[in-house]
């Protein structure tokens, strides 16, 4: 039988906590494996459960650079990978012409690395620091199939081919975190390259811990009330349930307003911080008294 592993998931979980990220065991295992197997980790979950935060925290934990690629429809190679610096190329050509230099030489020169604009994916592959960076491909579901196909190529070999220069390999593959809000299904071929984890809404206990960690010094009673309130909302029939991000925003707002304990009036005034649809606000407004009632009992 194997010897018990001393360096491992527990240590990772603690390290994450030191960086103000409270990860439950399943998430810690997923991150741990992504690091050990050097595979991309696809995180799915509702908006505001801390998917993007994982990448940010990992970068600071591994003491390396975070390279972020925000996805959108129509994202293409020129914004995701590289682009030639055309104005500079043209100027160089003209300058060579004026100086009477050989045009052939100038034409060769302008497709050199100094005329290359490196976009996030290329930066991540061609790492300049001494540690491989953390690459965050954020909200992948917003990109289109074409980009997904392209990403697939990059993530399977960690290499990028630029016709004018050649193929660039990553010496050490970057740590890759992909996130998706699931506005559409990510293609299976891409998923197969990745480890997968679904981040759920946290339990009340964990959520309170998150609030305390992120907003040190917050009143304990207020924390408890906020968390119970938000957790209650998540059991309701709302179009958009509040995420942890909303909980934190709300807590911060309440602190800024000098609130020490939830009251009907202040809840009504600040509902817009946690609910983003008017229908939901109206529905909840009617429920506030009964939820507050529960809080006190």
């Amino acid at each position, binding site marked *: *039988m*194997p*010897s*018990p*592993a001393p*360096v*491992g*998931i527990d240590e*990772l979980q603690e*390290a994450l906590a*030191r*960086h103000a990220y409270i990860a439950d*065991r*399943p998430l810690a*295992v*997923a991150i*741990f*494996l992504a*690091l*050990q*197997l050097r*595979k991309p980790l*696809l995180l*799915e979950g509702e908006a505001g459960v801390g998917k993007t935060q994982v990448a940010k925290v990992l970068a600071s*934990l*591994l*003491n390396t650079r975070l390279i972020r690629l925000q996805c*959108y*429809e*129509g994202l*293409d190679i*020129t914004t995701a990978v590289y*682009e*030639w610096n*055309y104005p500079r*190329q*043209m100027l160089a*050509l003209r300058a060579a*012409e004026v100086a009477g230099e050989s*045009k052939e030489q*100038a*034409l060769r020169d302008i497709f050199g690395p100094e005329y290359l604009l490196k976009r996030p994916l290329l930066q991540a592959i061609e790492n300049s620091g001494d540690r491989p960076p953390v690459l965050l491909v954020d909200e992948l579901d917003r990109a*289109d199939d074409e980009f997904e196909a392209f990403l697939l190529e990059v993530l399977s070999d960690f290499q990028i081919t630029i016709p004018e220069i050649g193929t660039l390999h990553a010496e050490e593959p970057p740590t890759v975190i992909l996130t998706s*809000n*699931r*506005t*559409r*299904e990510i293609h*299976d071929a891409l998923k*197969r390259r*990745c*480890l*997968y*984890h*679904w981040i759920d809404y946290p339990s009340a206990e964990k959520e309170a811990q998150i609030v305390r960690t992120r907003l040190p010094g917050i009143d304990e009673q207020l924390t408890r009330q906020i968390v119970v309130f938000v957790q209650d909302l998540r059991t309701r029939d709302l*179009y958009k349930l509040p995420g942890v991000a909303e909980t934190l925003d709300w807590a911060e707002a309440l602190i800024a307003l000098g609130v020490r304990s939830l009251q009907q009036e202040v809840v009504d005034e600040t509902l817009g911080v946690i609910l983003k*649809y*008017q*229908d939901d606000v*109206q529905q909840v407004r009617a429920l506030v008294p009964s939820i507050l009632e529960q809080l006190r009992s």
Partner: protein
Amino acid sequence: MDEWNPQANRPPPAYGGLLIDRLIAFGRLLRDLGLPIGPDQTLDVMRALRHISIDRREDFKLACRTVYVRRREDLPIFEQAWDYFWAAGWHGGDQRALLPHRVRTLKLPARLRRPPPTDADRQMPEQERKDQRVEIRLSYSSQEVLRSKDFAECTADELAAVQRLIADMRYVIQPRRTRRHAPQPHGRKIDIRRALRRSLRTGGEVVSLPTLDRKQRQRPLVILCDISGSMERYSRVLLYFAYAVAASVEHVEVFVFGTRLTRITRLLRQRDIDEALSSIGRTVQDWTGGTRIGDAVKTFNFRWGRRVLGRGAVVLLISDGWDRGDPELLAHEMARLQRNSFRLIWLNPLLGSPDYQPLTRGIQAALPYVDDFLPVHNLHSLEQLGKALSAIGDRRPERRQHSGHSMSV
């Protein structure tokens, strides 16, 4: 000091062959249960185990889960399979556990459930079996008659012919311009990269300006089809229609509803339509029951809208509007549906009859939020629909600003 080094490797523990065999068997079980598992994943699990102490049973399970499961829906299947498979004794030895003979609560995939072909099936050649379906050759004039005949008034033979004609129809939705650019002569944007590369041939002189333009892509289509009792005479034909659409349009999502909403997109992918329909019949529980359109639309909005209404989707809501639910809820949810779709088309079979007037409470509540209100009672109306879809335009239709709180978003 806060650094954490993932590469602090330990020597790989030597697991016995037994564990590997069991992992492979477990992977096979998952695959049989419908999870897309390939050999590369089993390899990944092996690799993962080098970094994980399997003494901590929970970690072992989580590691397998992280590698094997790629969709949230599969999580419960994994959990059940796990409990079943490893329950037989953690420390191994019991080879009987390899055989998933006790999986009762798990839903087995169709190919495992289907009874083996009988002798009669085997003897009949494929072609003949196909011909067994009603074969009607139609003259031109009988086709004309059939085209304008209400589905509800068709005889069984005519219906069979109608269904064959529907199956041959192909639908095209007018494409939308995406945000992605591609080389295109006379495009709207100059392709500087190609221009510069071409100029190399002419010694750095830019002679021609190649252009780019936005790529075209078909819009996604979402069909919500009422299969409640009042729609009985139409629903089967309309499912044929949905099947034909799903076969010809790239991104289609199909849902049916009576009192509750069921997604049948995957079921419609089967190659044989009759088999697809019978599996729908088994899956859908409220076949020919009452209708609560509002609840169905609400379920759609809450559970599916965000996932299938992206990229300028066109929505077809097929219903006769006989609704036993709350009209206010229906209005509210139709408003939401309209806001989230590029075009919302209500197809009503009753609209084919000349004296029909949309007076039921359901229709009254929903109509203000519908972009088009069209008939769907005969082949002719389906062709008209096809034409409408192929010329759906580049913009959302002008929509009235509705007063009232539901519209204030």
